[in-house]
């Protein structure tokens, strides 16, 4: 990740944003957030939280009913054309004309952004190469796989080299390989200086890609920070030690209590302690148990996940949480 340029104006700034629909339902309700230039901002929330409505406002597809939003320094309502010129958008479903070829679509996208024929053709080839679709560029998109369509969708969003890239759940429905490929490309884009506003339901995606994460629930931002900050807010990691059969559990508890505060554990053959230093606690714990003559079967450091953060701030869990990595496990021979 390229890291934010702190002196630059925000790439996205939102203040008191509201969007009410018929019947007075507020999909976005007093949202405030800022995305710094050059960062990947993960916008996390379950279905119906207001993510997509927010994105649709930011990309000028929907007008807010109250509040203000600026993208790349331009107001999304009064300077919508300027916003459009500076953003790239890949919306939730890769809406691509199946009758056109990938190459034609990229050229057309170039024309929509004011490129002349030769320039659009050259850019199309460049982007096909970038997303690994050069060979498939002459095929109609209706014959593409889901992953190929997503990659083409991303390429189309990049045709005019946007300052801010909006990706709305870009990997929903993709297989792990396609998802990894897309993540690599997003990282690469960000390394090149593109600000990325990424909405996702997947915790792993937010953890992998985002410099900072904002959690939205009920149309408002309920937590914001780096993934590490958010997780630290919930609590410290826990070190779980599975003892070898016949081991003295009481002695193990005494030995480990010198390394960190004990944590209640349901399993009789397991001892847990707070691990403020994360994985660095593992050798200390192993040494303490070894000196006490206690055999160990396995050791696991469990860190709080963004799902824990989400549960802590909203009281509910997030769809897709199962995709998130929740533990760093190290098998230790007995």
């Amino acid at each position, binding site marked *: 990740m390229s890291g934010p340029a702190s002196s630059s104006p925000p790439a996205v700034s939102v203040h008191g944003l509201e969007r009410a629909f018929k019947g007075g339902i507020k999909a976005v309700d007093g949202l405030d957030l800022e995305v710094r230039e050059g960062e990947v901002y993960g916008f996390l929330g379950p279905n119906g939280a207001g993510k997509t409505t927010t994105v649709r406002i930011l990309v000028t597809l929907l007008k807010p009913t109250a509040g203000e939003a600026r993208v*790349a320094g331009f107001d999304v309502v009064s300077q919508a054309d300027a916003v459009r010129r500076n953003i790239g958008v890949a919306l939730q479903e890769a809406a691509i004309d199946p*009758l056109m070829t990938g190459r034609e679509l990229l050229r057309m996208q170039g024309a929509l*952004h004011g490129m002349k024929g030769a320039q659009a053709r050259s850019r199309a080839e460049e982007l096909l190469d970038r997303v690994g679709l050069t060979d498939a560029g002459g095929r109609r998109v209706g014959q593409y796989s889901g992953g190929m369509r997503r*990659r083409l969708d991303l390429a189309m969003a990049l045709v005019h080299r946007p300052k801010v890239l909006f990706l709305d759940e870009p990997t929903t429905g993709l297989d792990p390989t396609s998802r990894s490929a897309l993540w690599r490309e997003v990282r690469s884009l960000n390394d090149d200086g593109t600000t990325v506003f990424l909405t996702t339901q997947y915790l792993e995606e937010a953890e992998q890609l985002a410099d900072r994460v904002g959690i939205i629930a009920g149309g408002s931002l309920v937590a914001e920070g780096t993934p590490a900050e958010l997780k630290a807010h919930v609590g410290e990691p826990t070190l779980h030690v599975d003892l070898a059969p016949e081991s003295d559990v009481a002695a193990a508890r005494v030995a480990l209590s010198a390394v960190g505060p004990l944590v209640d554990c349901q399993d009789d053959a397991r001892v847990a302690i707070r691990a403020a230093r994360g994985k660095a606690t593992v050798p200390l714990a192993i040494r303490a148990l070894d000196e006490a003559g206690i055999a160990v079967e396995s050791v696991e450091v469990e860190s709080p996940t963004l799902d824990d953060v989400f549960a802590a701030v909203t009281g509910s869990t997030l769809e897709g949480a199962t995709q998130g990595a929740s533990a760093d496990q190290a098998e230790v021979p007995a």
Partner: protein
Amino acid sequence: MSTSTDSPAGRSGSRSGGTNSPAGGVAWAFWLRSLNEVTRVRGALIGTSIAPLVFLLGTSGQFGRLVGLPGFPTDSYLSWIIPLCCLQGAGFAGAAAGANLARDIEQGWFDRLLVAPVARPLLVLGPVLGAITRSMVPVTLVLIVGVLIGGEVTGGVLGIVALYVASAGFCTVAAMWAIAIAVHFRTQQAGPLMQMSVFLGVFLSTAYTPQPLLKGWLEDVARVNPVSHILELARQSTVSGIDLSLAHTWPGLVALAALVAVFGALAMIGLRRMGR
């Protein structure tokens, strides 16, 4: 995926806002795409071409003897009906532009166009240009078949020009009406409303008989129906009793201009409301 550099330094211009993309390039891109609807969809032109041809043959057979009525301006009912069938074909091609747009809205493609720095009228103009192009196929086919089976081209080259102007204009009107419906309802389920409007517009005009031979409410409706004037413009091509003249030309042109203005405005209003 490869990871070629795409650095901010290489970005086109300072991107400080500025104007929309050039209209010509955008309209060209939309036009090219619209042609795919006929060049890449197998059999797409068959329906839109066969229907007016069948109508031409069927109607001329069924109502052929109407020319014997006093005051009928031609003795060839086929010549009377050719412009009507051309307009029908063009109208349905126009209505298809709305149905295609509704599909694009439903499938999310239209969002991609809306987030591009493109002048909003081009989002309407693009599908209209495509529809006009597509409409030329049934119009030409009807004219050729009509002439081959006995229709007369009494208006000469200028008459043919009038027929094509009327057809293209009617296609534009139908397309703008259909687009206005598409951006309002945003669903392909509104398709029948688009087609039905074209059918009614034509049916309640001097489609089958001249206005003096109509009776009752239909005569009144046909008199004020702008489609009657557009038909009169088109009929300068094949109906011997309707001379090629300014008097027969300008009412049709005014009717087309008025309808394009009204339905174009409706389409633009609907488009602006999409984000509200």
